[in-house]
């Protein structure tokens, strides 16, 4: 049960941080005419195509004792991130970034210029416009991003294995625990975990896709 609780906690923290960092990033990607849009968009999408172990490997190296991030965290007294819960959060944020940024970017692009311009001529400043017009109109995008970010983080394995290891209560999440059960030929517990995740994932996706097809309330 410790693995389930840890996994949910990891996914919740990672989703919160993903929405916090993904929203401005997605907004920038949706609005910019900069030449950097292509390269930044590609970097955000990298975790979609890379084997998670590749991402985990680089994170392990940069956050390790001789990596730039590792040296920084040590010098400010945080110690090293690999094989800690904080390290897993960092890994999860990178790993699930496209699942949050892409739905948000699509939702922001769908809002278009017009409502924002209309709000501007009605005396709403940039932040005011964002929170009173863009966020409500992109509501579905936020729901989709949060659900996909959360669910994807729950399912991660490769990154966790590389930078988290298998420490009960600290880094031993569901997918790793399942692997252990199979290794130990404990199929009963493996079935409980695997079946539980299957049902959970299906319910989450049903919530996202089922919701998307419903007409929005004001129509």
């Amino acid at each position: 049960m410790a693995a389930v609780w840890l996994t949910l906690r990891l996914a919740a923290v990672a989703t919160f941080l993903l929405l916090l960092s993904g929203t401005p990033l997605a907004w920038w990607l949706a609005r910019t005419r900069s030449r950097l849009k292509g390269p930044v968009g590609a970097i955000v999408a990298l975790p979609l195509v890379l084997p998670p172990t590749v991402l985990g490997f680089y994170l392990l190296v940069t956050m390790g004792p001789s990596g730039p991030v590792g040296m920084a965290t040590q010098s400010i007294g945080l110690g090293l991130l690999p094989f800690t819960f904080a390290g897993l959060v960092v890994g999860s944020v990178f790993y699930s970034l496209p699942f949050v940024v892409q739905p948000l970017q699509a939702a922001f692009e769908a809002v278009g210029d017009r409502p924002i311009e209309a709000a501007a001529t009605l005396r709403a400043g940039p932040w005011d416009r964002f929170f009173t017009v863009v966020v409500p109109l992109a509501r579905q995008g936020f729901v989709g991003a949060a659900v996909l970010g959360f669910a994807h983080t729950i399912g991660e394995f490769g990154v966790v294995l590389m930078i988290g290891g298998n420490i009960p209560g600290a880094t031993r999440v569901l997918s790793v625990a399942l692997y252990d059960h199979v290794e130990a030929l404990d199929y009963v517990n493996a079935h409980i975990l695997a079946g539980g995740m299957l049902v959970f994932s299906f319910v989450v996706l049903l919530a996202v896709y089922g919701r998307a097809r419903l007409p929005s309330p004001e129509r």
Partner: protein
Amino acid sequence: MSVIQASFRMRLGEFSLNAELSVPAQGVTAVFGASGSGKTTLLRCMAGLARAPEGLFTIEGETWQDEARGRFVPPHHRACGYVFQEASLFPHLSVGENLRYGYRRVPESLRKVAFDEVVRTLDLGPMTGRSPQVLSGGERQRVAIGRAVLSSPRLLLMDEPIASLDSARKGEVLYYIERLRDQLRIPIVYVSHAIDEVVRLADTMAVMSEGKVIACGSVTALASRLDLRPYLGRFEAGTVVEAVVAAHDLEHGLATLRFDGGELQAADVESLVGEKLRVRIRARDVSLALSAPRDASFLNILSGTVKEIGGGQGSGVDVAVMVGSSIVVARITRKSAGLLGLAPGKPVYALVKSVAIDRHSVGYA
């Protein structure tokens, strides 16, 4: 000092805007021109939605843009309302919340219009609780106009607000814009490519072509200029005279409109006796004769002298006739002009069919 002054230069791909404009900060100013002539870009520059690298924009002494001094007031700091061609209401808010969006953002001490007055003028009361999605196109545009007016603008910009509506809705929304113009004293800049709307609403007109303002002045004066006729549209264009309703002939459904060149009989004009009107007389509805016909169906026979004969190619020619101090333009064939021996100074009679002048060709001055 009650003036709106604008000067914008900018390039947008192939198109370049190079517009200068100085119009009174009162009543309705129409910006008229074909599509692609830069009307919308000019309006967006005025609102601050687009920023011309070389731009100057002042209204009644207040500067909203002066690039020479590096000054650019962003749109949300300008007291400037904007009505888009499509209503662009916020779909996540009710009609009432849409109306209050700009209203709430203006400090109470700076509010120039009362919420209830605007709602009453535009008949929006029954709609406030509804969602914008259930409204008709005309109703939506009325809400958009009300929403813009409620932000207490010093200047109201309207970008072809009725162009996307069917003709019945057009009339309905025009009626409300007229009420607004007469009840709230907010200067309006109204972009249009329909001359009948311009005549109905505007006192002043700026004609645009290829990014430039090629003429600017009173609607009456510009409509009588033959050199502008290619820009004002061959078929719909006509001159505009200012007239007063003198009498009604209820039996025949005709109204007598008196102007300084004589009298016009018009069909189905419902204005009260004594009301001042702007009357558009389309050039193609005017014929010319050397003597007054006694056995023809024309009710309007105006005596005048030829002022100018337009140039140009083709079978048709525009002839400007001075009638009193007003100008009436006739569109006749080049052949007729030759047969009649028309030349400047020659006395002629301008003949206008009464059914050609109806309530669609009048505006309230």
